[in-house]
């Protein structure tokens, strides 16, 4: 009789422990519905569900120059401007790519800037199958959030259970202090793109103007 009581107690304890373990280890709603990351590196084509993306270059600048309603605007920042150029293609049907986030090495997330008015080459990017399209993502980031950062590209800003390209920016040249080696004093968003293969030269020329 006594052994049976002890056995029952043991079974009860085991059940409680098992239930508690299951409750603790259960993934939370936010984890269950999080975007599904697809990892990639710069200059590689990353295939997300509805679009393909290839990161070509990242330019850092202290000031951005842009035209707004025919007026020239100079945009300054307390950190650095990061202008990311990406090649985008849709996989099967015309769609838009709207979500661009700069994720720092410690996980801080910098959304695409809202200080630029709507432009043709800014998100949301309209993309079509088999038609490559250049798109810009522009971020304001502190200089210490550049080394080890990655770029998150998704079809929408909030894209639960949808694919999210996570492109590591390790190929961005940084100095010993973590700062990028090339920072332009001024970057003109409306200047014509430099010809392919002379990117570096084109950038420096643009910086001097």
């Amino acid at each position, binding site marked *: 009789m006594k052994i049976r009581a002890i056995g029952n107690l043991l079974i009860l304890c085991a059940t409680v422990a098992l239930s508690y373990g299951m409750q603790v280890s259960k993934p*939370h*709603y*936010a984890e269950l519905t999080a975007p599904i990351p697809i990892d990639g590196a710069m200059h590689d084509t990353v295939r997300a569900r509805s679009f393909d993306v290839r990161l070509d270059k990242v330019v850092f600048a202290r000031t951005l120059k842009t035209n707004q309603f025919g007026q020239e605007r100079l945009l300054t920042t307390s950190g650095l401007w990061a202008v990311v150029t990406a090649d985008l293609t849709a996989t099967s049907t015309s769609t838009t790519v709207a979500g661009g986030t700069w994720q720092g090495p410690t996980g*801080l*997330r910098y959304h695409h800037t*809202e200080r630029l008015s709507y432009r043709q080459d800014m998100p949301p990017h309209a993309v079509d199958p088999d038609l490559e399209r250049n798109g810009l993502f522009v971020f*304001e980031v502190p200089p210490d959030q550049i080394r080890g950062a990655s770029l998150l590209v998704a079809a929408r800003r909030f894209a639960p259970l949808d694919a999210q390209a996570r492109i590591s920016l390790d190929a961005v040249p940084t100095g010993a202090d973590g700062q990028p080696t090339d920072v332009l004093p001024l970057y003109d968003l409306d200047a014509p793109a430099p010809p392919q293969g002379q990117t570096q030269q084109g950038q420096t020329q643009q910086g001097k103007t």
Partner: protein
Amino acid sequence: MFKTARSKFQTWITAGAGTIAALLVAGLMGAFGALPAHAPPQLPSDAAIDAGPWRVQPVRAYVSRAKVYGVPLKPGQKALVLEADMTNRTAQSDKAYFNVFKPDGIDLPDPLPMIALARDSTLTPELHPGMTERMAYVWPLARDAAVPANLSFGVTAEIFKPRDNLYGTPGWFNPYRLGTVAMPVADLPESGS
């Protein structure tokens, strides 16, 4: 010695049992909620204030009769402006700063201010983690509204929950009044901005 201590203790418990029970019951029934609430503390105006998701430092306050930071004013209006250095303390870009400051004791036609980035007058941009920016809170007022020379602004903060009760996601909830910060209000002449 222990015997006397024990008997003393027993006497205390016996004599105090009624009081303890009364306090417990009163507490359970919420009698202490009727106590006068503590006044929100006075916050320093010359140091940064941690207000939940934002670190704020008020810089200056003034009344303007001209357009400030691109915020249009209707005819017959003036604007109460509070400039503050704001830093996003959270892990992602956010613009939930509309209720951080509220002027006390002033009749506002619209309680929600217009907020502009002082750097280039962008209206309500997202602020990025760890990047301090000067923001201008602009409350339009009637032209004849009286604004005291020393005005206190209520500062609202929120608490962080690693998991909210609905979705289990992290976020900032339950706004509460952190305190008030008193600022001298300059009255700018017509042409000033």
